[in-house]
């Protein structure tokens, strides 16, 4: 009986904890007025001593002496900087699986099927002012899976993360990773084609040739079935359908690549089949073929200064952003790393250090330009009335190494707030103490040993090589 009472007591304690509150708490899109801040609008310059009004999830006003409703939250922005939420155009956060590496063409797989909204790295990215991610399939295959563009609504269910209206996309990959994938480390498994850049071209050519035929087959069927109900329908092929969408201009290609020759290869292949590459990803040698990239109309989404981690990265230079920008390429700076995503502000500033981009050009690398590359530039990427209230308040200029984020908003809701974070730490510690007393959580004296903790990849590891997130 005593035990039973203790248990009841425990339940009562647990029930009063903020656990569920924290998880279920739906941020209420409260009206917020940030007063007297420096506003980096991206499209309309830097505005000093300016107010920003967030209402109903949108930016409702940018200007001096704005008025807000009586119940609005007022934030004193004196000395603070407001910038648009950072958009990371190459991420693998919140993916339970990154690569379907068993086949050379996996356009039938969708990153949307593997979203993990509880990935704590999302929160850490919010703390770096990031609000939107382009979740890409890995680089195991010439044609990889479909992407998902999300807003980082950490704490909400996965379906609420989806960025409404973002252009559907797909991942391609050229070069070493694809080649390396043909040499699996499992004994007895047959090597996968391709193993050279020649083979990569051939695989993509073959896939688009099949896709073109597939479209014709369906067109013919649709015509024929009008007259004859007994025509056999062709097979619906989930691998080829996204490729047809690419040919029809309905799906963006995000192509992982490194060296100049493979970039030119894909441009000429795309030209031949009549489709566009929306972004070259990484594209470390983009600066060598900047005019060809610009002529094709492709964007580039790059690392600021990573180089020499493999042979195809040996000619990478940190002037890449500047050279391509000047050649007329829309350039963005991405992370491809849950770690690096937390400091994309500094990554963007590097384009001022190396290559003399202006502050506005550098800001665009992580805001408006990636928005353009994902087809969401009408919604996010700058601070303008009518755009989504996805912004971050910084305690200093975001291009200063000494600055950090105070608050991050998505659709007008607070998803990160440093003061709240600090205030919650003792509560979490208390919660842990209580939970550890709970029967299901008690260590078993005769139990097995716990597992060895997993090592996290260091900040020096690059590229989307993992199958799963460790």
């Amino acid at each position, binding site marked *: 009986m005593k035990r039973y009472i203790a248990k009841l007591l425990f*339940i009562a304690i647990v029930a009063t904890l903020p656990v569920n509150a924290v998880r279920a708490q739906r941020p209420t899109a409260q009206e917020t007025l940030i007063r007297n801040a420096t506003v980096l609008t991206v499209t309309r310059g830097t505005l000093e001593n300016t107010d920003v009004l967030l209402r109903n999830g949108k930016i409702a006003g940018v200007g001096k002496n704005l008025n807000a409703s009586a119940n609005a939250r007022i934030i004193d922005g004196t000395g603070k900087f407001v910038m648009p939420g950072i958009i990371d155009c190459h991420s693998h956060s919140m993916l339970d*699986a990154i690569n*379907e590496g068993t086949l050379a063409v996996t356009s039938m797989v969708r990153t949307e*099927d593997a979203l993990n909204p509880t990935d704590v790295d999302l929160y850490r990215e919010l703390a770096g002012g990031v609000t939107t991610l382009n979740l890409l399939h890995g680089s195991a295959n010439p044609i990889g899976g479909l992407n998902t563009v999300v807003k980082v609504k950490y704490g909400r269910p996965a379906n609420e993360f989806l960025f409404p209206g973002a252009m559907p996309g797909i991942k391609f990959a050229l070069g070493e990773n694809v080649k390396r994938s043909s040499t*699996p480390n499992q*004994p007895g498994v*047959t090597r996968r084609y391709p193993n050279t850049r020649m083979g990569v071209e051939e695989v993509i050519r073959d896939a688009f040739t099949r896709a073109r035929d597939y479209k014709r087959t369906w067109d013919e069927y649709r015509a024929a079935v009008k007259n004859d109900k007994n025509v056999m329908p062709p097979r619906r092929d989930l691998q080829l359908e996204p490729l047809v969408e690419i040919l029809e201009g309905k799906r963006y290609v995000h192509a992982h690549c490194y060296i100049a020759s493979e970039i030119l290869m894909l441009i000429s292949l795309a030209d031949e089949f009549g489709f566009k590459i929306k972004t070259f990803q990484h594209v470390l040698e983009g600066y060598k073929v900047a005019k060809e990239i610009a002529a094709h109309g492709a964007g580039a989404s790059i690392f600021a200064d990573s180089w020499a981690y493999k042979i195809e990265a040996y000619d990478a230079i940190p002037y890449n952003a500047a050279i391509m920008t000047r050649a007329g390429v829309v350039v963005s700076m991405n992370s491809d790393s849950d770690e690096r995503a937390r400091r994309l502000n500094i990554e963007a500033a590097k384009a001022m250090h190396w290559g003399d981009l202006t502050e506005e050009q550098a800001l665009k690398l992580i805001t408006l330009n990636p928005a353009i590359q994902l087809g969401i530039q009408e919604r996010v990427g700058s601070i303008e009335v009518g755009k989504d209230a996805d912004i971050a308040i910084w305690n200093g200029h975001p291009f200063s190494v000494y600055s950090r984020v105070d608050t991050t908003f998505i659709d007008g809701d607070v998803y990160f707030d440093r003061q709240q974070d600090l205030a919650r730490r003792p509560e979490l510690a208390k919660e842990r103490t209580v939970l550890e007393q709970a029967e299901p959580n008690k260590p078993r004296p005769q139990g097995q040993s716990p597992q060895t*903790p997993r090592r996290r990849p260091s900040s020096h590891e690059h590229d989307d090589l993992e199958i799963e997130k460790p």
Partner: protein
Amino acid sequence: MMGIWVLMPKIRSRLIVALTLLFLVSNVNAQRSAIDTYAITNARIVTVSGPVIERGTVVIRNGLIAAAGANVNAPPDARVIDGTGLTVYPGLIDSYTNLALPEASPSPSPGPGGGGAAFFALTSQRPAAGPNSTQPPGLQPEVRVEEVIRTGGSEIEASRNIGITTALTSPRSGIWMGQSALINLAGETPQQMIVRSPVAMHVSFTPLRGTYPGSVLGVFATLRQMMLDAQRYRDSLQIYERSPRGTRRPETDRSLEALVPVIDGRMPVVMQANNEREISRALDLAAEFKLRLIIAGGREADRLTDRLVKQNVPVLLSLNLPRRTTAAIPEADPEPLRVLRDRVEAQQTAGKLAKAGVRFAFQSGSLANISELMVNAGRVIENGLTVNDAVRAFTLSPAEILGVQNQLGSVEAGKIANLTVTRGALFDRNSRVAHVFIDGRPVDLRPAAGGGAARSSLSGTWSVNVNLGGQGERTITLNLQQEGDRLSGSISGSLGAGEISNASATSGEVRFTVALNVEGQTKEATFTGRLANNELRGNVAIVGSAPGTFTATRSGQPNQEN
């Protein structure tokens, strides 16, 4: 027989039930006599479908419940059981098990073209599923457990001992795992055990290894593609039937054929999903293809009650409640808060589902020790579920979810006489199961045989093929001595020589550590494997190297037990 199934897919399931019933009835008629009439008198009767009868009689005749009520008299030919102080419940149903199926063999290493480590004994021991399938193992929806069901065994006995009379038994592995059967846990032949088959199609989101689909991404793409292919298969057959002349004959495809009732919504699909995002993915897929979804596992189902209610999706909720299994070691990281919360909250899931109006039934969820089932049910009751709802989740709810509510799940005249009779209320800690009736016959209740299946000794000399990532195969010799759970021995051969340490052989799992010479360095290798068919198979984990696999066969002192 198979031919008939192939030709008449639509009437197939009904036919099976009919045949099965016919078979049962004829058997009963042949074997049973009036002495199979029983009456439990003066008992408290929890009918589940109606009010509790505080003092009444249940009459069992011809395998069925003949009558139940306060004013029912024991017939003169009945054997009378004085039920004073006893409570009669409908026989408990465990809504998700692998009972009566052959043991899973450990994962073999993937062979060329895939093979698939997720491929277990079920398929390999049942040629019917393999040869003419268009799909690799793991993607064969045509697999049916009914074809491999075996009678008897200690697991079935252990389940009966705690009052379980009926179980859904489902394939062990795969993505399209195959089709389940509902069985009574008694019977002289597999045919006698089957109540209904197939009951449902089963799906898990576990990737194959070394072959497509090798990730959860590919799993969903494959599920979709095969369902699309099944739609086309169905439509093509219809077109062909309408006008065979001048139309190219569609190839027969047993895998796609098995999916047709699924995509037509005639057969429910049970998807294994425990955490919120898995359940959410299952719900999305079901909505996309208009499937009759049932969630199995459902640990975090309480977080999606709105969607479960809206899509009318029931849950086979596992009572294998998560709990810490490890000891405390100072060097270990504290467990994540998320894990601590989830374990505590898992106990509340059932109560929350009940409050939200989500239909659910209990399942044992491969509890290592089935006798914990009732203890865990008690825990769930302490955490917000009413006793009535708990009883229902073991009886009428699973019967309804699995489509046998006219046969099972309540104490009503005309239903199958599966009854669980307890002294004390079902979930009371001090209650015990007094009688169990299955198909109208009392079942012998014995204390569970200790330790499950009889063990065979590992002592002897083994020839071990070790396959380390990328380094080809090496053969070493392993000498083992086993005394109870204790294991000792040594290795010798091209990977070095030395004593094994940390060795154990518990509940079928063999485990030991030994220093191996790998890549010019001496490294700790931990072997973990299982014994089956006189062969040890399993994995080798090496600190700082890629993992490998091993297979060991006896090379000396052949063991007589096998």
